[in-house]
Each structure stands twice: as structure tokens, then as C-alpha cells.
């Protein structure tokens, strides 16, 4: 490891001339899908280069190949003056070539300390006895954190940190120099998908610093404003083929979207006021749960209520309590005019409540089961007359109809969920619940990782459900989404509802300001 002098600059042994990256003729095929089709791409040193594309267009596949996690069918890679064959490019070659990757799920271990999370990228230091050298572990982590200007104690458990900080630690872990391999290229897959705008901006600032040091940065995101504001170049891929590469100033949002979907985008619909006053559906009084200290909330039929707040403010706890996953410490919940005493996800689902949880992989996905099971698992009794077996034909028909209705990009409904791209998996989970025609939708980051076009489609589906008399509570870190979708937005901070925004007040700026107020004055929660 090198000695540090001063800031992050000295840490990164980057040679500008050596770190440009180019890909030639990259092709990758999965059973039934050509995920990448003869891709040629150049990434210049010292620039942030965005890769944009709809769900399932092949972005993550591209990144996994660069990381050496997946083998390409064919393709050549040049980094600086080094040439590689991508069909035999493995994780070790990727590291040695100077490629550093932060995958979409970050790959952090929530219950381990920051120091251990960093050590997992470089190996644990050991004592003479072969035991873990905890002191040098902490010291090494402190050096890394210091040089990347991340102000946290190495002993802090990862899970107690904001996602933006976790992301920066994941980046620091990827970039910390080890052996003699120097970092040349930093690749990030949707690092901002679950970050509120201001935290995303903070992260992009950090990335700009790395680019200025000469690092090549490849950046995948579905947030077009972010790409237009913070990147230097942008390439669009659609269905595995490159549509075009231009410098960012020559792109506009419309141009990007039409390149992504291959046709002119439909105008983004403004928030249509939904018909309310059809009676109250949900009444919450004095709810105490998780970080929430005393929360009152009434939701009327036909209403979309947005919940804004920072990570850890209790947004998810609220939804989880209504759905019976967590027992509240106090307070009362009434649904459809009836007090809820005993609650569980099963009871909640039977009452007509649906919940799309925040963490898809852990709480919603049956990764190794077929797509059709994932879609219809909550509705199976419909397909089995009492005492009879399931009607496979009907199941297949309904599953195909849902795949079409939600524009899920899948080879067949019998393929396992794990073969879908991230955004398409999210669409499956949304379809699972929306197709039950629930009375109350609890949506936690409903469109995370979903491309902008599909996001509009999902919003449309939510509005449709609500116009039919249902109600929805939407938690989103994407304040833009809240402003677009919700009839009113509650801002939660410090365990209480701090503000309620509606009509003209309901703007991204106001939400951001109110949700992050404490943080600007130095404290959090």
C-alpha cells in the first residue's frame, strides 16, 4: 500500500494516457436473448461517460463483462495500451487491468463494520498467529476513509450509515490500491437508484473529483437529469445494440428517451387531480413504530399520498406496520372503518392491502422460480377450484397477459425471475400486486431501477387503480417521482410529520428542503 500525503489525489496512481478504455465487437448471448450485439464503445480518460438504456437493454451485462464476472461470446478490450480478449476475461484479469466496479447492490455487508467491509475488498491483515489483526485492520480502514475524505469511524456498523455514505465506502473499497495494480477505470451500475437527489449530487461531486484525477468513469443510471447535468459523454443502448454516442451537451432529455425506446416519447402527463372524498380508507392515530414517535395519517379512497424523508426516517417502518410485518409499539390503525387488532401480512393481504417492499432481492423476489409463479403466487387459489388441482392453462394465459400489460421483457413466463434485468424484475413485483386489484397500495420505492418510460407506465397503472377507488401510499427517494405522482406529500423527520405539501406547494424543491432541513444544520434524524 502506498503512503498518503494529503487528500485523495495522491492516492490514485492514475496515468491519463493509460486509462482510456475501448470495446470492440462485444457480443453476449443468453438462452433466448442476445443481451449485447456487436457493441463498439470508447471511453476517454478523465471523463464521466454515461451508459443509458431501457430495462433489459444490456447495461448490467456490459458491466458484468467488464468486471470479469460474465464471459462474453466475442469481443476485444483495450485499456491504455493493453489488449484483452473478452471471451476469456475473468475477475482477476479485470482487477489487474485496473478496472474497479461498484455493482448495483453495492455488495456491502450491513451487519459488519465499515473497517471489515473495506477489508473484504483487500484481504484481512493477520497477526503472526494467523488471526485477524483487528488493530491494523482499523488503522488501514482509517487510512482509506481518510484519503477518500469520508468522515466516519471505521468501527461503525455499515447498516447505520446513510445509503449515500455506504455507496461512497463501496467506491473507496473498489479504488483502494492494493498489490501494484493501479486503478484506471471506475464502473458504477445505478449507484444513485435509491438515493434522494441531494445525496446523489453529493456522490456525483465525488465522482467528478476522481475524473479530474484522470480516471475513466463509466456510469449507468436511469435518472436522465443526473446524466444531463453531471456527465461528459452519454451512450444509449437499446435491445443490446448501440444506438449512439455523443458528448452530453448534444443530448437532450427527449433525444435520450427517443434513442432509448426507438420512437418519440409520449409527453409526460402532468399530475391529474384524482377524485377524492369517497370516504376514508385508512386512519392512523398516534402510531409509534421504529423511528416514528407519534404519527397521524388519514388516507381517503381515490388518493395517492406520498411520503418523503431521509433514509432511516421511518418511511418504510410506516408501510411495514400497516402491512402487519412489524408490530407497532403504540397507536391505532383503522382500515375501511374497522379497527385493526390482530395484523399480519396474510391478514393485511386478505383485507385488500398490497405492499411492494423496498428490498426486492430479500423481500419480494423468488429468484429461482418461474416468472409466472412470481406473478401469480398471491392469486393461486383463483386457479384451483375447491378440491381440484391448479389449471395450468389458465395460469399461463393470465401470466402472459400480465407480461404484456406491464411490458415485461421476458423470453417466456416459464423462465426463472433471475433471468430478467433488474428493472423487469421490479415490474413483475408491481404486476403481482396491482393485478390483485387491492384497495390500498403500499409502495416502497416502486420504480427503483425502472427506466423512465416504464416508470411513466407504472405511474399510469397506479393512477388507474386509484381512480377505480383504491388508495396508495408511496414512499420514494426520488422526490421527482413524488411530485409527479402524489396528490399530497407528507414529510417525515425526527419521528413526526413535519409538513404536508399539496397543490402548488408540492414541488421537488420544497420536498428536498423540508426533508433535509436537519441535515443542513448539521444533525440527522
Amino acid at each position, binding site marked *: 500500500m502506498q503512503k498518503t500525503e494529503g487528500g485523495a489525489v495522491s492516492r490514485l496512481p492514475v496515468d491519463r494516457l493509460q486509462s482510456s478504455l475501448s470495446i470492440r465487437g462485444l457480443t453476449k*448471448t*443468453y*438462452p*433466448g*436473448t*442476445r*443481451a449485447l*450485439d*456487436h*457493441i*463498439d*464503445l*470508447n471511453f476517454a480518460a478523465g471523463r464521466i461517460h454515461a451508459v443509458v438504456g431501457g430495462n*433489459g437493454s444490456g447495461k448490467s451485462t456490459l458491466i458484468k463483462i467488464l468486471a470479469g464476472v460474465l*464471459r462474453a*461470446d466475442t469481443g476485444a478490450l483495450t485499456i491504455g495500451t493493453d489488449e484483452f480478449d473478452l471471451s476469456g476475461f475473468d475477475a482477476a484479469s479485470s482487477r489487474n487491468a485496473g478496472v474497479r466496479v461498484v455493482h448495483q447492490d453495492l455488495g456491502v455487508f450491513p451487519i459488519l463494520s465499515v473497517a471489515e467491509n473495506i477489508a473484504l475488498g483487500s484481504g484481512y491483515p493477520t497477526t503472526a498467529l494467523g488471526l485477524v489483526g483487528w488493530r491494523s485492520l482499523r488503522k488501514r480502514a482509517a487510512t482509506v476513509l481518510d484519503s477518500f475524505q469520508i468522515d466516519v469511524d471505521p468501527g461503525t456498523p455499515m447498516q447505520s450509515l446513510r445509503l449515500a455514505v455506504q455507496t461512497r465506502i463501496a467506491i473507496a473499497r473498489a479504488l483502494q490500491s492494493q498489490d501494484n495494480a493501479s486503478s484506471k477505470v471506475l464502473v458504477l451500475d445505478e449507484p444513485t437508484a435509491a438515493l434522494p437527489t441531494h445525496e446523489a449530487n453529493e456522490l456525483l461531486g465525488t465522482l467528478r473529483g476522481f475524473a479530474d484525477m484522470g480516471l475513466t468513469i463509466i456510469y449507468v443510471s436511469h435518472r436522465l437529469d443526473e446524466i444531463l447535468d453531471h456527465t461528459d459523454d452519454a451512450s444509449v443502448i437499446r*435491445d*443490446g*445494440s*448501440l*444506438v*449512439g*454516442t*455523443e458528448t452530453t451537451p448534444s443530448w437532450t432529455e427527449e433525444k435520450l428517451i427517443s434513442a432509448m425506446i426507438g420512437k418519440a416519447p409520449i409527453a409526460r402527463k402532468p399530475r391529474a387531480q384524482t377524485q377524492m372524498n369517497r370516504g376514508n380508507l385508512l386512519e392512523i392515530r398516534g402510531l409509534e413504530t421504529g423511528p416514528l414517535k407519534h404519527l397521524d395519517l388519514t388516507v381517503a379512497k381515490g388518493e395517492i399520498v406520498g411520503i418523503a424523508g431521509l433514509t432511516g426516517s421511518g418511511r418504510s417502518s410506516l408501510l411495514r406496520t400497516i*402491512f402487519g*410485518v412489524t408490530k407497532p409499539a403504540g397507536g391505532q390503525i383503522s382500515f375501511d372503518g374497522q379497527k385493526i387488532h390482530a395484523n399480519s*401480512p*396474510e391478514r*393485511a*393481504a*386478505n383485507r385488500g392491502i398490497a*405492499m411492494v*417492499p423496498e428490498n426486492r432481492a*430479500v*423481500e*419480494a*423476489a*423468488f*429468484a*429461482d*422460480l418461474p416468472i409466472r*409463479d412470481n406473478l401469480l*403466487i*398471491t392469486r*393461486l*387459489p383463483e*386457479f*384451483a377450484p375447491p378440491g381440484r*388441482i*391448479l389449471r*395450468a392453462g389458465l395460469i399461463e394465459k393470465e401470466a*402472459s397477459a400480465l*407480461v*404484456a400489460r406491464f*411490458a*415485461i*421483457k*421476458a*423470453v417466456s413466463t416459464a423462465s426463472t425471475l433471475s433471468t430478467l434485468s433488474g428493472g423487469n424484475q421490479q415490474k413483475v413485483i408491481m404486476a*403481482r400486486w396491482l393485478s390483485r386489484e387491492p384497495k390500498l397500495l403500499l409502495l416502497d420505492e416502486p420504480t427503483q431501477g425502472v427506466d423512465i418510460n416504464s416508470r411513466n407506465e407504472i405511474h399510469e397503472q397506479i393512477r388507474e387503480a386509484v381512480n377505480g377507488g383504491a388508495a396508495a401510499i408511496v414512499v420514494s427517494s426520488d422526490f421527482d417521482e413524488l411530485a409527479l405522482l402524489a396528490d399530497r406529500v407528507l414529510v417525515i423527520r425526527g419521528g413526526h410529520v413535519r409538513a404536508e405539501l399539496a397543490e402548488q406547494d408540492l414541488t421537488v424543491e420544497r420536498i428536498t428542503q423540508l426533508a433535509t432541513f436537519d441535515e443542513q444544520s448539521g444533525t440527522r434524524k
Partner: protein
Amino acid sequence: MTATRTHKAPSTQTGRLRANGWALRVLERYALVLLIIIMIIIFSTDPASSRVFLSAPNINSILANQSVTGILSLAMLVTLVAGFFDLSAAAVTGVASVIVASFTGAHVGNPVLAVAIAICVGAAIGALTGFLIAKVRLDSFIITLGLYILLGGVLVWYTQGQTLPTGSSFSDISSIKIFGIPSPFILLIIVGILVWLFLQHTPFGRYLEAIGSNSNAARLVGINVDRIVWLSFILSGALAALAGCLLASRNGGGDATTGSSYLFPAFAALFLGATAIRPGRFNVWGTIIGVFFLAIAVSGLTLIGASTWVQPVFNGASLVLAVILSTFAARARSRRVVRPADTKS
């Protein structure tokens, strides 16, 4: 720089590759069946074994004997699909065989009643295990291992190490042949069909599989995970007891250790079975094929006159090999080249 799209996929080549992939998938699913056929050919042509191997008594005894292993494996399959190991199932088989023996033997009871009692006791033990695992949330491996040891001990105490004989009318049942097929094998096939229908084609079975895939997510889609896991243990106990009834009838008695000795053969069959028919998953027909794969090998090797150490070596090696083969086949399949995206969106 603006890149252009270069679409070229020679259709004839893709066609051939698709055919290859198809062949590979069939091979992957039926490799175990193929191996059974190869073994049958070898053992029925080898002069040392051919005469006896293909004789009706040998075939019948393989079919009948293995039905106990088969039904026990299916009992264990029910909970394994949801991700729970049930080591105690084999002990339940032992308990049931002793119950049936003591009710039809010395007390000269009604065999139907005896079987009903045994199955109820099996279900009750399953209910207890299931309660501890699903409701109290204790570790299934440890609980069922404990129960396996405990029940074994209780049986030694109860039988005093003796074999309790069943009534002769009871043991005759398993010697009946229907259209020349031994009745235990018919029972196995019926149980197999029922378990298969149950696991694959009822909501309950799909829930079990969802729980096995991601129990967290299963809970959050509103599945009553505790209740379903509990019920699966009850069902598993009842099926394991049924295997015990068959065992008592086949052996003409029940003792403390025979039932328990079926644990590892049943597990081996389950894991072998997970490499066939639905590769990567525990499944009914794969399991039954696994049972007979091992049985045919054992019978053939014995007839050839192989030493006693050959059997365990063979069983262990085939388990490891089967897993290796199916894993490689799965990898090859995921690398296989197919036509470019023909998607539905």
C-alpha cells in the same frame, strides 16, 4: 463517434446450436435414467449376474424392497421443498413399523386400525416437530436430529431389542401382486402421483416451493408461512409412518433399528433425484429414479460378487458424480447460443 447497428446472425448456425441446446437439456434431465438403462444392460449381459438379475423374483424384490425407501424419501421431500431437513422422518418410519407390529401381532388387532393408528402417531410426531420448527422457530436440522436419536432410544426400550412380529395376514398384504406387479411398488407409484400433484399442482405445494425459494418474500406476499410449514411436517410424518407400515409388512415385524437405517439411502435418493427430471430441484420423479438407480446398482454388484466395500463406494461416487454432471450441463446450457432477442414487449 456514432456507432451503427450490425445485425448478423447466420440462421443455419443458430438453428444447429438450438438443436444442440435441446439435446443437452434432455441429456441433463435423463442422464440418470440413461445410466440405469446402461447398468441394466451390463448386469443382464454379464455372465456372473445375467441369470438371476433378470429373473422375476429379483426384479420383484427390488421393486418391493425399494418402495419403503421411496415412500420415506417422498415424505422427506415434502419438507425439503420448503427448505427444511427432516432427519426424524426415518425414526418415524421405525416407530410406525413397531406400532403396526404390536397391534397386529400379539394383540391380534385389526390391520386397518393398526395402520390408521400408526399414521396418526406419525402425523402427531410431525405436528410436534413442525410446531417446534415453524412456530417456535428452532433450527430444523438440530431438532430433527435430536428427535431421530430420541425416538431410536425409545424404540429400543419398548422393543427390548427384540423384533415384534406382525400377524401373518398383515405381512401377506405386501406379497400380493396385481397384474404381476408387487403391491408395494403400486403403493409407491400412487403415493408418488399424489405427492407430485400436491407439490406441483395445488396452491399449497406452490406455496411450499415459494417458501423454499425465499421465505421472507413468501411471508410478505401474504402466505401464512408458519402454518404451511407446520402442515408440511404433519404430512411428512404421516407419509413416513406409511413407509413404516409397509416396512413392517415386508419384514413381517418391527424392530428398533431397521427404520432408522433408511435415513441415508433416502437422502442419497433425494439428492440424486435433484440432478434429474427438474435439475437443480428436489422433485418426485427424480427421487424415485434415484431410489431405483441405487437399488439396481446394489443388486447387480452383489450378483457380480463385488466385495462389500464396493457398494458404499459406488453409492457415494455416483452421488458426487451426478451432482458434477448436472452442474456442468446447467453451465453449458447457460452458455449456449440462441437466436437474438425475440421478446414480448
